[in-house]
C-alpha cells in the first residue's frame, strides 16, 4: 500500500503561507514586513481553495506565496531592519537606566526616515530588481507620479516631514522639465479631481493625476506611515528614472537648483538645466547662435558668442539651455526619421509605413506669446504651454517668479488667458475703475488690441485636438463648450457625445422619438382646433402588445389580425360617435404619417420578439456553463446599453429644449 499522505504537507497547503506565519518566519515586526512587501512588490494571493490552504480552524484572511516569502529572506534590507531594532532596544535600555546622554548619542545614529525623510538604507537594488529594464520602470510610473505630485501639494505635518515634501516637489519639477524639453507630453484633461496628464516616454503611455493647487483635505483614517513607505520608494524610483531620462537627452542630472528663486515661487524656473559636458554646451550654444544670427564670419561669431555667454549669466540661462536642448532634439530627428520608400519599378507590393502626423506637438504654441492673468492656474498652464513648444510665457507678478514678462501691456503678447467674468456694472468704457492689486492701468473690461483673449480650457482643447482652435467659443465670459476626455476611445455601439444623436440612436429609439414628436405636433394642433379627442389609442395598443410578449407564433399572428380588427372597430365606433355628436373625425384621420410610424414600430417590435424567441431557442442548446457565461455577458451589455440609452434620451430632451428655446 502506498504511503498515506498527510494533510497539509504538500500541494496547495505548502505553496501558501499566512501573513502571521510569514512574519514569524522573517522574524521582523509587522510594520517592517509591510514595508518590505511594499518595496519588494509582494502582494497577497488568493488560493483556489481557502480550505485546503489554511491549516487552522480560524479563517486566515491573507495568504502569500511561500516562494515570495523565501525570496524575502535574502533581502539585505532585512539586516537593516534588524540593526534598527537593535538600536531602538539600546535606546530604550539607556533611557530606562536614566542614561540620557547615551540615549541621545544613540538617537543621533538612528536615522528616522519618517521624521527626517532621510533613511540610512538605499532602495536602488530593490528598484533594479523590480524593474529589470528601464521600460519596465516607465510602465509602472503611473502610480508613482500621481503619488508624488499629490505629496508635493500636501502640507507638511508631523507624519509628513517638510523635507519629504520638498523632495517630492523637486523630483516632480525635474520630471516636468524633462517632459518640456523632450516634448513628450501628449494629452491633458481637466477633471473634477484634478488635472490628468498623459505623456509618451520611450513609447510607453504614462498617465497621472495632479491635484488642483489647493490645500488638500485629509479625511478619514489615513495611515500616513503606509503612504510614506510608498513615497519613499517612489522618490527613489523617480530619482533614478529622472537621471536616466536626463542623460538620454544629454542633460546633467540633477539640474542646478536655485533656492532663492524657489523661495520666490519660481517653481519650474528654479531649476536650471545643463548639458552633460562643456564641449556639447559650446556646440549647442553655437547652434543656437547660428540659428539666431546667420553670422557670416565664424570667428567673429564665436567671439560674439562668448560675449553673449558672459553677459547672460543666470537670468536666462535656463531658457538658453532649453533652446539648446531643443536644438539637439531637432538634429536628432533629422537622423532618426524614417525614410520614405518609393517603388522604383512597378509590380512590387506596397508596404505601409508609419507617417508623422502633420502636427508636431513641439510646435503647437511655438509662435505664441502668452500672458496669464492672475486668476488662472499658473503652474499647470506654464507646464502645458512649455511642453507644447511655447517659449514666452508672462504672468502677473503675484503668481511668482520666472515669467518671461510681468508687464501685461507687453506688445509681443499674442494670447492672454483670462478666467474672469465680464463685469456688467463697470461698463463705463472710460477705464475708470482702477485695479489696485495688479497695478495695471486698464479697466475691468478693457482689452489690449491685437491680442487673443481666451479661457484656460482653450489651451487644453488645443492640446488634445493637436491644433489651435478658434478662440471664438472660448472668449472670456462665454459659455464654454463641453470639455471632453481625450482618453476615451470610442467603441462600437457606445454613446459618444461628439457624434450627432441621429447617427448613434437605434431604430426603435428614433421611431419612438419621431412618434413623440408627431404626437406633440398633433396635440398642439388639437389644442388649436380644440377638439377633445382621445389620443391614447396608440398607447393602448402598445401596451397590449407588450403584455402579450410571450406568445406563440401563430397566436401572435392572430393577435395582430385581431389588433387590426380592433383598430378598425375602434375607428368605426369613433366615426359613429362623431356622427352623433356632429363633429368630424378629421384629427384622427389627418395623421396617416403617425399611423405609418406606429405600424413601423409595431413591425419592429414583432421582429424583436421573433429574434428574442430565436435567441431563447439557441440558448437552450448551450451547455449550462456557457449559458451562464452568456447570460452574464448579456447582463453587462444590457446594463451598458441602458446607460447609453439614458444618456441619449437626456440629450434628446436637451436638444429639444434648446430648439424650443431658439424658436
Amino acid at each position, binding site marked *: 500500500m502506498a504511503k498515506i499522505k498527510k494533510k497539509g504537507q504538500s500541494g496547495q497547503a505548502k505553496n501558501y503561507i499566512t501573513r502571521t506565519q510569514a512574519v514569524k518566519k522573517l522574524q521582523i515586526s509587522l510594520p517592517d514586513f509591510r514595508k518590505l*512587501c*511594499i518595496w519588494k512588490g509582494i*502582494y*497577497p*494571493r*488568493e488560493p483556489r481553495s481557502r480550505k485546503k490552504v489554511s491549516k487552522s480552524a480560524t479563517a486566515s484572511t491573507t*495568504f502569500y506565496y511561500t516562494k515570495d516569502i523565501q525570496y524575502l529572506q535574502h533581502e539585505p534590507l532585512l539586516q537593516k531592519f534588524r540593526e534598527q531594532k537593535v538600536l531602538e532596544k539600546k535606546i530604550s535600555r539607556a533611557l530606562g537606566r536614566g542614561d540620557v546622554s547615551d540615549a541621545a548619542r544613540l538617537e543621533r545614529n538612528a536615522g528616522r526616515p519618517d521624521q527626517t525623510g532621510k533613511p540610512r538604507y538605499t532602495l536602488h537594488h530593490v528598484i*533594479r530588481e523590480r*524593474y*529589470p*529594464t528601464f521600460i519596465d520602470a516607465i*510602465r*509602472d510610473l503611473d*502610480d508613482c507620479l500621481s503619488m508624488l505630485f*499629490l505629496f508635493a501639494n500636501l502640507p507638511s505635518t508631523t507624519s509628513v516631514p517638510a523635507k519629504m515634501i520638498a523632495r517630492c516637489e523637486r523630483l516632480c519639477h525635474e520630471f516636468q522639465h524633462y517632459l518640456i524639453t523632450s516634448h513628450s507630453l501628449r494629452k491633458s*484633461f*481637466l*477633471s*473634477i*479631481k*484634478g488635472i490628468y496628464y*498623459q505623456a509618451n516616454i520611450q513609447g510607453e503611455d504614462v*498617465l497621472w493625476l495632479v491635484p488642483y493647487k*489647493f*490645500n488638500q*483635505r*485629509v*479625511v*478619514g483614517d489615513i*495611515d500616513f506611515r503606509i*503612504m510614506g513607505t*510608498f513615497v519613499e520608494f517612489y522618490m527613489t524610483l523617480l*530619482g*533614478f528614472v529622472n*537621471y*536616466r531620462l536626463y542623460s538620454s537627452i544629454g542633460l546633467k*542630472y540633477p539640474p542646478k537648483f536655485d533656492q532663492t528663486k524657489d523661495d520666490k515661487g519660481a517653481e519650474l524656473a528654479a531649476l536650471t538645466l545643463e548639458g552633460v559636458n562643456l564641449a556639447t554646451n559650446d556646440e549647442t550654444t553655437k547652434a543656437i547662435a547660428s540659428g539666431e544670427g546667420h553670422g557670416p564670419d565664424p570667428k567673429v561669431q564665436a567671439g560674439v558668442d562668448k560675449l553673449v555667454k558672459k553677459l547672460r549669466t543666470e537670468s536666462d540661462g535656463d531658457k538658453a539651455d532649453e533652446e539648446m536642448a531643443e536644438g539637439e532634439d531637432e538634429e536628432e530627428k533629422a537622423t532618426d526619421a524614417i525614410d520614405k520608400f518609393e517603388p522604383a519599378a512597378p509590380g512590387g507590393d506596397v508596404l505601409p509605413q508609419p507617417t508623422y502626423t502633420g502636427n508636431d506637438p513641439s510646435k503647437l504654441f511655438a509662435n505664441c506669446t502668452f500672458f496669464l492673468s492672475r486668476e*488662472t*492656474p499658473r503652474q499647470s498652464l506654464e507646464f502645458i504651454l512649455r511642453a507644447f513648444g511655447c517659449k514666452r510665457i508672462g504672468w502677473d507678478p503675484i503668481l511668482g517668479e520666472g515669467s518671461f514678462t510681468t508687464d501685461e501691456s507687453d506688445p509681443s503678447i499674442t494670447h492672454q488667458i483670462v*478666467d*474672469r*467674468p465680464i463685469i456688467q456694472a463697470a461698463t463705463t468704457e472710460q477705464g475708470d475703475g482702477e485695479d489696485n492689486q495688479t497695478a495695471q492701468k486698464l479697466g475691468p473690461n478693457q482689452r489690449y488690441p491685437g491680442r487673443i483673449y481666451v*479661457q484656460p480650457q482653450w489651451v487644453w482643447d488645443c492640446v488634445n485636438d493637436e491644433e489651435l482652435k478658434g478662440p471664438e467659443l472660448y472668449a472670456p465670459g462665454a459659455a*464654454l463648450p*463641453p*470639455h*471632453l*476626455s481625450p482618453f476615451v476611445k470610442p467603441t462600437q455601439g457606445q454613446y459618444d*457625445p461628439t457624434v450627432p444623436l441621429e447617427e448613434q440612436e437605434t431604430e426603435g429609439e428614433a421611431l419612438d422619438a419621431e412618434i413623440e414628436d408627431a404626437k406633440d405636433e398633433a396635440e398642439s394642433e388639437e389644442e388649436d382646433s380644440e377638439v377633445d379627442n382621445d389620443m391614447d389609442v396608440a398607447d393602448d395598443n402598445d401596451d397590449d402588445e407588450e403584455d402579450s410578449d410571450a406568445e406563440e407564433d401563430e397566436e401572435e399572428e392572430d393577435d395582430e389580425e385581431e389588433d387590426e380588427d380592433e383598430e378598425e372597430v375602434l375607428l368605426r365606433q369613433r366615426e359613429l360617435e362623431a356622427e352623433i355628436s356632429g363633429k368630424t373625425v378629421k384629427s384622427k384621420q389627418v395623421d396617416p404619417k403617425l399611423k405609418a410610424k406606429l405600424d413601423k414600430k409595431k413591425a419592429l417590435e414583432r421582429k424583436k420578439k421573433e429574434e428574442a424567441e430565436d435567441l431563447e431557442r*439557441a*440558448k*437552450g*442548446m448551450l451547455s449550462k456553463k456557457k449559458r451562464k*457565461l*452568456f447570460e452574464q*455577458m*448579456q447582463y453587462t451589455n444590457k446594463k451598458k446599453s441602458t446607460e447609453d440609452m439614458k444618456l441619449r434620451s*437626456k*440629450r434628446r430632451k*436637451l436638444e429639444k429644449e434648446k430648439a424650443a428655446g431658439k424658436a
Partner: protein
Amino acid sequence: MKSKPVEKKRKARDEESDSESDDELGNGLFDGVLEASEDEEDYIPSDEIDDGDSESEASEGSEDTEEEDDDALLSDDIPSDVEGDDEMGKLSKGAEELEITEPGVDPKPKHQEEEHRNYRIEKDANGGERYIYDEIDPVYDSDDSDAQGPVNTIGDIPLSFYDSYPHIGYDINGKKIMRPATGDALQSLLDTIEVPKGWTGLTDVNTGNPLNLTQEELELVRRVQHGLVPDEGYDPYPDTVEWFTSKQETMPLSAAPEPKRRFLPSKNEAKQVMKLVRAIREGRILPYKPPEEREREEEEKEEVQFDLWQDEEPAAPNPMHIPAPKLPPPGYEMSYNPPEEYLPTKEEREEWEKTDPEDREKEFLPQKYNSLRKVPAWGTLVKERFERCMDLYLAPRVRKNRLNIDPNSLLPKLPSPAELKPFPTVVQTIFRGHEGTVRSVAIDPVSFPCSNICMTNADHQQTGVALATGGSDGTVRVWELLTGRQVWSVRLSSEDPVYAVRWRPTKDAFILAASAGEDVFLMVPTHSSVTPTLDQASRDVLAAGFGYATNGQQPAAAPGKEPAGKWARPGTKLEDAGVLVRVTVRSAVKVITWHRRGDHFATVSPEGQRSSVAIHTLSKHLTQIPFRKLHGLAQTVVFHPLKPLFFVATMRTVRCYDLQKVELVKIVQPGAKWISSLDIHSGGDHLIVGSYDRRLLWHDLDLSNRPHKTMRFHPKAIRAVRYHKGGLPLFADTSDDGTLQIFYGKVPNDQLESPTIVPVKQLKGHKVVNQVGVVDIDWHPREPWCVSAGADGTARLWM
C-alpha cells in the same frame, strides 16, 4: 545645668541597684542588659554633651595645669591616684562654682550629691585626706559614661507641649521635672547687658535652659561648619618623607643585560597605528566635528544618483507575477465641464445620496463648473490615493480572463429556419376509438403500389398508409392514416392491454406484431391497399416456421424446463381475423423490436428476471434468451441498423452486445436514473435515450460513453423517443406533460463534426390523464409526419 545632679543621683541609684542585684542574682549580667536597654533610649546625646561640659569646665577650672589636661580627660571617671583625686576635687569645686553662676539653679541637689558620694575620705598615714573609692563592679558598661540616665524622659517631642504645665517632663523614676525658674525681668535685662561666657542665645531642647557653649566648642562648631578637620592640630597633608628614593643605590638589583626589544620599535604598536591610518584613509575615521555641523553636512549631501539601468538586460517575466492593474483613465463624466447629458437628474442625485458610500455604483457625481477658476479641490483625493496604496500592497491579485467577445458568438451556429423545415407543426388527424390509453402506435413501412392513393404514377410505391395502434382495452386497430378511418380491428385479450404494436420492417410482407400480456401475436391485417399477393406472401412468411418446427429441427427444450417461448396458432377465431401466430413467453411483454431484415424480433418483459429479453426467429419459430444474467431491469432493446449489434437498456445503462461474437462491446452511461426508451439513428452511430427523470440524452457512440447533449425541456417524465428513419434529420420525444417535442438533429457526414441539434417545435394537444400524457410516437417512414399515442384514448397525426 540641671541635668548634672539628676544624673549623679541616678548613677548612685544604679550602683545601689547593682549591689542589690549582686546579692539577688549573683552576677551583673542582668543589670548590664538592663543598662543596655536603657542605652538604646534617646537621651544619650545629651549625656555626652553634659560630659563634655563637665570636662571643659574641669579644664577651665585648672587653667594652670594645661599639660595634665589629657590625663584629666583620660581619668575622668576613675581617678586612681592622688593627683587624680586632686583633680577631681578641683573639678567638683569648679562644677560647684559654675553651677552657682548659672541662673536659677536649685542648689539643693548639690547637698544630696555630697551625701551620696561614691568615695569615702579617710586619713592616710601622713594624716592627709585619702579618697577611698568603692570597688568597681567589673560588669559590662560599668564604666560607661553613656549609660548615665537621661534627665528628661519625654522623648523626642517639642517642649512646647509642656508650656502650660509647671513641669517639663519626667525623670527615669517618673518624677516630674519641674520647670527651671526663669529669671525675672531684671535678671533678663542683666543677662542682655552682660553676656555670659559661652552664651549662645539658644535653649537646650531637653531642659529648656539656655544653651551655653564654651569657646572650644564654638571653635569646633565653626570648623565643622567650614568643612575643616575638627581637630585643630591635625594636618591632613603632611610633607612626604622620602624614605627610599632620596638615596642613590650604587649596586643594580639585577645583573641581566638590557633586552633587545627595548631598543626595537613595537610591532604591535605599528599594527595598531596602521589600523588607524587605514581607517583614516578609507574615511572611516573622520576628523572631529561638532555634531551640529555634521548634521548640517549630512542634510546637504544629495542622494546619489546614477544610471541604474546601465547594464540592463530584459529578464523573462515571472509567470507568477501579476502586475498591478492600472487605474482606468477618466471618462467624459469626470470632466469639470462635461456634456450636459452626463449630469445627474434630481432623482438620480437623491438616490446617489441616499445609498451607502460602499454601495454606490460610481463614487462621484458628475458636476459642471462654468469656468476653471470655480473648480474646488477634490475632497477625497488623499483618501483615494491611500486606498490605491492599500490595494497595491494588500489586495490579492488574480488573473481573470475577461472574455472580450460578442456574446452572440457563443451561441451555436444554427441552421437557418428555412433549412430546419419540414417538421410537423399541426395536428392533422385524430384517431378515436380506443377505450382507455392508446399504448402504442406504428406506421406501416410497407410500400403499396400506388393504386388507389396516388393515381399519377403506377411505379410509385406508397408507404405509410396504414397506422396500427394498440390500447389498454386489449385491441389492435389499423387505421387509414390520412383519413383516420378504422379499417381493421382485433381484440387480442380481454384483460391485458396491448403494450406494443410494431410492423415488420420489410416491404415484402405486411405483418404486424403486437403483445398482450405474455403473448406476442403476429398478424396480417386486412387493409384496402393490401393486394392479395402481398397478403399471401405475408401469410407464407408466418407459416414457414410451422413447417420448420414440425420437421423437428427445433432443438428440444431441456426436459423439466419451461421453453423460452411457445409458438402456436392462436385459435380459429383469431386466425379468421388475421392473427396467425402466438408466441407465449414467460412474463408480460412490454416492448417489441424488429430486426431490420424482419426475420428476428426481440421482446422485453421487464418483470421477467433473466428471461426478460428474448429474441425470436420468425423463420424458425424459435425463441432464445440471450442473456444468462442481466445487470438491472431491462427496459428496452434495439437492434443496430447495420451491424450485428444489440443494445439493451437497463434502468441506468445501455449495454451494447455483439450478437455474433456473443460479447459485451460497450456500456453507455447516459447518467439518467431510469431509462424509459431508446432509439438508434439510422446511421448507427448515434443514440437517443429518454428517461423518466425528464432527460433526453443524445449519445455519440464514437465519441464517448457519456451523453453528447443533454436536453431537459420537459417538466415531466419522457416516455418515448424516436428518430425519423426515412432520411429527414428529425427526432421527437413524448412526455407525461402531454407534449411532443420535435428536434432537428442533423448528423454530419464528416465524422469529426458534432451533430447539430436544434429544438424545433413543441406539439401540444394531448390531454393528461392520471398524470400520463403522451405514451408513444412513431414517424412516418418518408414524410415529416408523426403519430403520437396519448393517454386520453386518442392517437394524433401531426404534419
